[in-house]
């Protein structure tokens, strides 16, 4: 039996599988590889992808920030940041003139600064008037 087993292995070993149409296979491999070379050689595309992804994330973040920046009543009562904002809104005549509840904090703040500068000018002029 040992001989039969060895003989079988020898027979199987001696028959080398032959690749039919090797050139077709090579062409097919090279075709796929050429596509990969094109992909590999496009750093511009890679940078464009990165830039677009970053822009998308930033825009989404900005949108999210603006949406959450309009506080609800509970947040406004506990968060100091929103307390200041509410104070600004309440105090600002500028806000009443603009008449919008959904103005963003930057515009509100600019308004507040403008009011302050008017007040400062008045304060400066007050001692002069007194004199």
């Amino acid at each position: 039996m040992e001989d039969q087993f060895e003989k079988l292995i020898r027979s199987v070993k001696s028959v080398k599988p032959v690749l039919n149409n090797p050139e077709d296979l090579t062409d097919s491999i090279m075709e796929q590889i050429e596509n990969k070379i094109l992909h590999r050689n496009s750093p511009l595309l890679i940078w464009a992808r990165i830039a677009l992804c970053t822009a998308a994330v930033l825009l989404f973040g900005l949108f999210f920030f603006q949406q959450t920046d309009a506080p609800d009543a509970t947040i406004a009562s506990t968060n100091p940041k929103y307390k200041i904002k509410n104070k600004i809104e309440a105090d600002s005549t500028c806000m009443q003139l603009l008449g919008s509840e959904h103005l963003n904090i930057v515009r509100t703040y600019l308004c507040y600064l403008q009011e302050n500068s008017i007040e400062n000018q008045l304060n400066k002029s007050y001692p002069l008037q007194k004199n």
Partner: protein
Amino acid sequence: MDQNTLNELIERSKRNDGKAFRLLVEENRQMIYALAFRLLCNEEEARDAVQETFIKVWMNLKGFDTNRRFSTWVYAIAANLCYDKLKTNKHFSKCLPAETLNEVLSNDDVEKKMIDTELGALIATLTDELTPKQKLVFTLRDLEDLPTEEIVQITGMTANQIKSNLFLARQALRTKLNHFQDGRSI
């Protein structure tokens, strides 16, 4: 192909030279096909495996250490790819006609007459009960005639694991052959 030419082709291929890589493919395709065919026992699957192997080689060529033997590295990629295929797919197990095996065992000249389809069926019939690991080790050691050290490098198994898998594979094949000799079909 001498070592210097081979190294030059590898370096050029690393720099995206398709022509150099084509020469590497032409040099190694038959060797990889033989291994893939013996493991997968099917011409189409073996061709696909050769294709996938060279694409993987191309993708990972920049990380290839030129101190290693290129053929061993390519062999390792092909062997692991076929091993994964063996693990995931249930391969065909074409029933080998009894006459073919009789012919193999009785005729000394049979190797010259056997065609790929019969060879595939013969290997599939003999090895379909082996585990993928046993089949891989048996193919590399007994059919491809590789030394144990090289099989260690290719498979990542230890020498002891290789020995035990080879022992079990040979034992299973002998048992199968015994059954056939006793008149049962294999």
